[in-house]
């Protein structure tokens, strides 16, 4: 067994987990909202891309580009019409509403698409690989990882270099004072969730082209995303990438030892980090 190869695969898989997690990290950072339906929204986006691919005969990348504005609008409306009503000091309403949403999306997808495993076909790209020195690296995993880095660079640019990002940070720090300065927090939150849903769409493109997916897979994706966020530390996008990579490496190494241990190894890595560094590896936010 080639350990270096296993670890490289793990790092690349970590890119996918970072993509799952980036949206969650963004939404939590701005409005302290944990969306329990995050994983199901990833699966929903994958089905949307699948629908566009099969109905219009599009290339998956083109279909994902089409899905981006649709998912943005969905996220915007979801936040503006539903989730904004749940925000407040009490943590029960947002948790229970998003939990309900998770069940609704899962069963809606089951009703619409059945429980069959699906896959978005990416043609020859699926099996293509690049030879780097002694290692053969799959093109799709590499693309996933590069997309994750691009997404995180993009989110950091938006967050720290634009007026929208300033509004994000201001609302996150103090919603009332930001409101006095003319920032409408409801719209800021809706935009943030919209952007998170665009990240979700990118994640779902790679979820759907790299492996089979079905309507019940959402909760597991939510858990991986959550673990990556916590390992990386709240409020740091690069930390989230690091968290994703740790999860990815733990899972591939676990799977290399015994295929049944793949998922378990990821969870154990998470618990170990929680034990040693309760606030994650690169914490930025205070809470």
């Amino acid at each position, binding site marked *: 067994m080639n350990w270096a190869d296993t670890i490289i695969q793990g790092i690349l898989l970590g890119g996918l987990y970072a993509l799952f997690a980036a949206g969650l990290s963004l939404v939590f950072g701005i409005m302290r909202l944990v969306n329990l339906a995050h994983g199901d929204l990833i699966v929903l986006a994958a089905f949307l891309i699948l629908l566009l691919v099969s109905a219009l005969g599009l290339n998956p990348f083109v279909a994902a580009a089409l899905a981006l504005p649709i998912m943005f609008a969905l996220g915007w409306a979801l936040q503006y019409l539903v989730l904004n009503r749940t925000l407040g000091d009490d943590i029960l309403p947002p948790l229970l*509403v998003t939990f309900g949403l998770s069940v609704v999306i899962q069963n809606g997808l089951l009703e619409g698409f059945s429980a069959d495993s699906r896959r978005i076909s990416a043609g020859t790209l699926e099996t293509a690989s690049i030879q780097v020195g002694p290692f053969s690296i799959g093109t799709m995993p590499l693309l996933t990882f590069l997309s994750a880095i691009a997404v995180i660079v993009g989110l950091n640019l938006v967050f720290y270099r634009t007026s929208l990002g300033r509004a994000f940070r201001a609302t996150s720090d103090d919603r009332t004072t930001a409101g006095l300065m003319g920032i409408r927090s409801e719209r800021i939150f809706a935009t943030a969730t919209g952007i998170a849903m665009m990240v979700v769409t990118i994640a779902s493109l790679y979820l759907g082209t790299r492996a089979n997916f079905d309507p019940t897979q959402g909760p597991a994706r939510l858990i991986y995303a959550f673990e990556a966020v916590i390992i990386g530390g709240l409020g740091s996008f690069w930390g989230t990438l690091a968290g994703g990579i740790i999860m990815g490496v733990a899972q591939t190494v676990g799977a290399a030892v015994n295929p049944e241990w793949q998922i378990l190894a990821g969870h154990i890595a998470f618990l170990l980090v929680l034990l040693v560094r309760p606030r994650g590896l690169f914490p930025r936010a205070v809470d």
Partner: protein
Amino acid sequence: MTDHVSDRWTVSTRTRGSSVAVLLMVVVVVAGVLAPVFAPRAVIQDLFFILTMLVLAQCWNLLAGYAGLVSVGQQAFVGFGAYAMFAAVSLLGLDPLVSIAIGGVAALLLSVPTAFFVFRLQGAYFAIGTWVIAEVVRLSLAQWKALGGGTGTSLPSGATRDMPGVRLVADLLHVRGPQATDIVCYWLALILAIATIGFIYRLLRSKQGLGLAAVRDNREAARSVGVDPTWTKSFVYLVAAFITGLTGALIYVQKARISPDAAFSVPDWTAYVIFIVVIGGIGTIEGPIVGVIVFYILQNLLADYGSLYLLFLGLLGILIMLFAPRGLWGLFANRSGIQLFPIRRMLAARTDTKAHGGGA
């Protein structure tokens, strides 16, 4: 309950509704105990399901509604209790009744290290943390080959027939073995439900209950008057784990077949339970009772629709959380002012003259 406050005043939680409720409850309990005499087996099985879901809902409500601990991972304790019971019966050859108790204790033991991890996570992250733990327990038990690994196993045949009381019930009510087992399980569920509700009611009316409400309403203020939030929450978490484990073990004595996916099912042991509490009314003892009845009716009406049924339940949960966050019971209690399990302390002037003598 009355507390001694001063000579002129008493603190009481009794309301007119609660006195009627006591009477009502006595009738319900008597009817419940006698049900196996006249009800067919299918009804007893349904009642068993309702009672066990009620216990799980009361436990979750205690966590989320009173201690502010929103757990999405209570299936960890249902499954672990059930697996401990299976291990005790199948591997150690113990009696199922004893094994149910072992299931509860096992869940309690599991909750100690679990609490250590999840209490490091605040608020919303606590929810997903409990879920991760449940996944870890499920994946670990799926490795236990002696209990069937990932595919699961059945209780040894005859194990539940030799349970104490089963033969007696079979002779007394002239029923067959399996039906007698169902009846014994049902009575155990009834005892568990009454004990759980009684315990939670007592807890909420006690000093600890006041502390719990204080921590929920304002953590800092509660600390400043000497309530230790971590201790209070940990206590509730451990107790809920113990009762949930007992219930899980009892459910699987009746089912007699276990698999990791079923025993740690999120829809069965967490989603349903959350919807029961939310629909009925979170933060009240009456809420889960109302919720489980509504849930049972909905399930009978809509179960044939499969995933549409769950979709509907999810939508109903969302709507209630958005527009009536105190649930159906909250709506009713607000309008009528009726409380069946009053825990609010009310000040009343003393009427008896003896009080001036200085002692209650």
